[in-house]
């Protein structure tokens, strides 16, 4: 049902059941908000979006108040603006005064609002509470002093990731967002996915930075810094530096990384190809030996952490292969740089990932339990952008650079890892080839594509029908696990990405939720698959080379030691 309402003395059409904010968004009137998130039910906790409605004594929150036929709304009346400004001033009263030194400087919603609402003085003088920064976990840092208790992180953690790692502790002005018994995220059910960072309006949640460490390595004469980058990086860089899609972004990126000081640049997608080879033969092995199914992919460290912490009974289903980041690190250290005449101990492997959990993964996985990690530093996409800016890399003037001769070819299957369903698609291509000796036709599996949280496909491979499911948004996996538990579902392979829609929306990407950007990032990856000549991992010439020179046949015991890992139950509360 449609009816007219009056907004700022203009007649506007509204639909029954929608909120005032829906109407305002449609007609282009912006009301500020700090707690609202598209796709979540409003909590009405920040009160910034209040508007004046004739006949209602109080101001009403536009995010949750339903439109009614008789309504006359004023969105920016003096009373409303005074209220918003006062609320903001109240928030700022106890907020640390260190914007210039804050990681979120220039991208902080609180800062934007202070500018928009013309806050020009600190109205209330309050000592900001001395609270400890939670630096306990390698991926995420929490500074409760900067937290405005909007609750977005909690809702994402509860509803999207489903681990409930944080909650509001205490009451009233003593409320803090935290963990049980103030223990810190590292011993918590937290899976370090970083989705909370994505939605945090202030600098309360950030990645734990490796920025300084990387700059130091770049400047160290004895060091041989190299970098590997994730499948989604080119698109994210193009987005951050406004590079046109028509440009050869991949090779421009290589140039930029070289200019930054990295001696060699590797595409992690190549290691993803190796993952696919090992995993495909591992799966066929499982199938033949009637070992536990479904097989769970293991490329997403948050998902692995979730299994280790909360569902250890499924450890046996988890693919034993290390993640592409770790494999790439291993290959770089063991084979590639040695061929370039470098000692492994001098090589400093940086990986740039759209992910905070990768930081955690790198810290906790060392070569043969030694002091040498596979990867020396993991930076997020955001951190790399900062490094580029710091070092004055001007993308408009860069020319594409040819790739390094060694180990830089990858198939587009490895590239597909960046979006949910992509890993599965690439895996099925190689399984098909390994089982039948023929290429799958067509290679593209439409059922596994698109911005959906659960995608399912039935794929015929020879005489065998494989049921596969790709789930993204870790909270959605619970239903699937229930189905598996009750045995009602004959699923062969499950791919899980903790972040909704996969790494294109990872916790290390540029902050803020924006579906348009997600679509662009996703399309960039699918476009590569369209244009690439090598679309399957097993056709990547490097694979042949690797298996001939360094590795035994896929899934052999020698490779097990190098590329696989045995996973154990996590130690959490």
């Amino acid at each position: 049902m449609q009816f007219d309402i009056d907004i700022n003395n203009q007649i506007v059409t509204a639909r029954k059941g929608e909120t005032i904010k829906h109407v305002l968004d449609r007609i282009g009137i912006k009301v500020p908000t700090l707690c609202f998130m598209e796709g979540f039910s409003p909590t009405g906790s920040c009160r910034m979006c209040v508007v004046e409605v004739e006949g209602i004594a109080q101001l009403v929150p536009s995010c949750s108040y339903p439109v009614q036929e008789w309504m006359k709304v004023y969105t920016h009346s003096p009373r409303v603006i005074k209220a918003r400004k006062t609320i903001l001033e109240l928030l700022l009263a106890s907020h640390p005064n260190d914007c210039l030194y804050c990681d979120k400087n220039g991208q902080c919603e609180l800062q934007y609002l202070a500018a928009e609402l013309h806050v020009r003085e600190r109205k209330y003088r309050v000592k900001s509470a001395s609270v400890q920064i939670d630096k306990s976990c390698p991926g995420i840092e929490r500074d409760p002093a900067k937290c405005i208790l909007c609750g977005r992180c909690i809702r994402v953690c509860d509803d999207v990731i489903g681990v409930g790692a944080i909650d509001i502790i205490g009451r009233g002005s003593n409320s803090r967002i935290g963990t049980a018994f103030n223990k810190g995220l590292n011993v918590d059910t937290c899976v370090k996915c970083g989705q909370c960072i994505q939605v945090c309006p202030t600098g309360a949640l950030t990645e734990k930075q490796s920025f300084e460490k990387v700059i130091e390595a770049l400047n160290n004469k004895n060091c041989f810094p190299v970098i590997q980058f994730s499948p989604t990086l080119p698109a994210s860089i193009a987005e951050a530096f406004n590079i046109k899609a028509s440009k050869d972004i991949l090779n421009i990126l290589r140039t930029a990384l070289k200019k930054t000081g990295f001696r060699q640049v590797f595409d992690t997608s190549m290691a993803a190809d190796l993952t696919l080879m090992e995993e495909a033969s591992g799966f066929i092995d499982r199938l033949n030996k009637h070992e536990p199914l479904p097989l769970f992919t293991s490329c997403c460290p948050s998902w692995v952490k979730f299994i280790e912490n909360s569902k250890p009974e499924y450890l046996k289903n988890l693919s034993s292969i290390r993640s592409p980041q770790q494999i790439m690190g291993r290959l770089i250290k063991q084979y590639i740089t040695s061929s370039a005449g470098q000692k492994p101990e001098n090589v400093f492997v940086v990986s740039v990932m759209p992910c905070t959990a990768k930081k955690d993964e790198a810290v906790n996985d060392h070569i043969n339990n030694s002091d040498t990690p596979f990867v020396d530093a993991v930076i997020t996409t955001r951190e790399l952008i900062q490094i580029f800016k710091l070092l004055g890399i001007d993308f408009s003037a860069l020319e594409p650079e040819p790739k390094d001769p060694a180990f830089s070819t990858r198939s587009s299957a490895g590239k597909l890892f960046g979006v949910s369903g992509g890993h599965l698609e690439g895996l099925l291509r190689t399984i098909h080839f390994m089982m039948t000796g023929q290429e799958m036709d067509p290679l593209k599996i439409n059922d596994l594509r698109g911005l959906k949280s659960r995608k399912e496909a039935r794929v015929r491979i020879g005489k065998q029908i494989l049921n596969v499911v790709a789930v993204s948004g870790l909270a959605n996996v619970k239903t699937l696990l229930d189905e598996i538990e009750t045995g009602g579902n004959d699923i062969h392979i499950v791919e899980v990405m903790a972040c909704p829609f996969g790494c294109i929306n990872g916790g290390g990407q540029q902050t803020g939720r924006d579906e348009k950007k997600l679509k662009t990032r996703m399309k960039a990856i699918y476009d590569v698959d369209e244009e690439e000549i090598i679309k399957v991992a097993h056709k990547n010439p490097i694979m042949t080379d690797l298996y001939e020179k360094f590795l035994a046949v896929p899934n052999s015991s020698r490779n097990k030691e190098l590329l696989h890992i045995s996973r154990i139950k996590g130690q959490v509360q």
Partner: protein
Amino acid sequence: MTSSGAIQIKEFLIEKVVKNYSGLFDKATASTLAQIKREKVSRPVIYIGMGTCGLIAGADKTFKAVEKYLHEKKIDGELVSVGCLGLCTAEPMMDVQLPGKTRISFQHATEEKVEDMLNAVFHHTLLHENAIGQYRMPLTEEWPGLTYIDQLPFFALQRRNILRNTGIISPLDINDYLARGGYRSLFKTVLNYTPEKVCEIVDQSGLRGRGGGGYPTGKKWSMALNAGSDQKYLICNADESDPGAFMERALLEGDPHRVVEGIAIAAYAIGASKAYIYIRSEYNHGLLVLQTALQQAREYGFLGENIFGSGVNISILIRQGAGAFICGEETALIASLEGKRGTPSEKPPYPAEKGLFGHPTIVNNVETIANIPSILENGPAWFKSIGTSGNTGTKIYSLTGKGKYSGVIEIALGTKLSDIVYSIAGGVKNGKKLKAVQLGGPSGVCIPPSQLETEIGFESLQEIGASLSFGGMIILDEDTCMVNLSKYFMEFLQKESCGKCIPCREGTKRMLEILEGVTRRPKEENSHETLERFKGMVQLENLAAVIRDTSLCGLGKNAPNPVLSSLKWFREEYEEHIFDRICRAGECHNLRTFYIDVDLCTGCNVCHKKCPENAIIGSVKMPHFIIEQKCTGCGICFDSCKFSAIFFK
């Protein structure tokens, strides 16, 4: 009593009393009823007020002392524990009823005095000084020279309807309630009325919710009744947590079955088969009484499945609160029942559409619910005859503070505040002057003597900024500092704020800090500090307006009330604090100015050593001095001086 006797009484009460709508009884029935109601007793009966306030005052010791007395004197008497009559200043209370005589009440019946009092009564000769009155009992002989309870000033202007049984009947014995017409309304309702009809009757009575905005109860019920859902819930809100309010506790402890019956009728009216009582965690005694009442009601077949063979199922569960003031707010209460943090949520949607576990839910407070049985028993017209038009029925209050009498009272709506203060409370005690009446709990207002002609009612109280939805009424005398009191309420509210919405969480904290600044002495007193305090006052008013305008729930919305009302009526006290740095009531200790009497000072040097600010100078054995600018008024010197040489103004 033998068990077969118990069954006989049960059957008699159900068949002859509950199922008899008319209330007219034949002679034999009337006679048996009089015995059950103890209007006629064959052996001495001693009643002890064992409500929480009685227990705090030592009623359990009194009980034991009486037990011992009866045993030692070999008196065959009955000892009955009753609820609280409401006259708290008289606790512990003991009533004695001898065969053939009326029931008389004693105040301050402490364990030491029991023997004395009982000796007096059993000798029929003299009345003890602590005897305060006797009940009207037509079947018995009265005590000469003793006033009737209902003529005592505390009771004379009251209109006791829902409190009519408290303090009189045994709350632990369902028969006592049944003998007075209990559960007759429930029986009548489920067998004769459709739920729609019940909503209509309640609507016609004009009953408005006593716990919130005064929304007509019948209309609210209809909303839930008409909401399409298989499952609906009724919640009785017994989370009475505002400081100084305990009238619902007195009701629950004194007459629990009235509440249980009310809940059952309300649940039937909205089509709910399941009801919850959400009782404040501190009400341990009330909880025990309620549990017993529910148990008895189930045994008698008034709760459970297919009650009275009507096919109606009603079950009532008790849930305890966990110590959060905010859970008195209905959406927060629902969150708490669901096992979550008790934070309120945005309305709409209202609980009547989407409440507990997402189902239509009605939340009524204890007082509203307790009115239901009498409305259905006597009809809406009867209820409308109490109070004024638009404000029908009664209101219960906890009357506390500096009045001569304090306790739980019930008055008809429309009663003037002055009548309550000067008649029921007997004015201010110790001959002090009345400063104000604080009404409406922590987020209520302070009403100056000039406004005492205001009548108790929803709209009339709203006009002076107060609300009917809280039952605390506190009498303040001249020794009360209004700024300090505002600070006290602000402190309470900011502590109890759930922290969900920013204006309430941060705003109340800032308001409290401003008030603290006004009542505290800074390290160094100068014009800048005065200006800061003055600026604080401007901010206080601005903050109050925004908090009121934007807070999510009633707690925040009303949080500025105490400050705004005291600013309105007692502004000069604020100004004295800010500019003159004086607290006329002497409550703000920090503003005291200390002096040393040179004649009394022996120069012992103790104050000098103890002063944290080094504000005291003087050499040993010589009189000391206090440097006023350095003194923060902490009073440590005052406490430590052995020669009473330090005094303050």
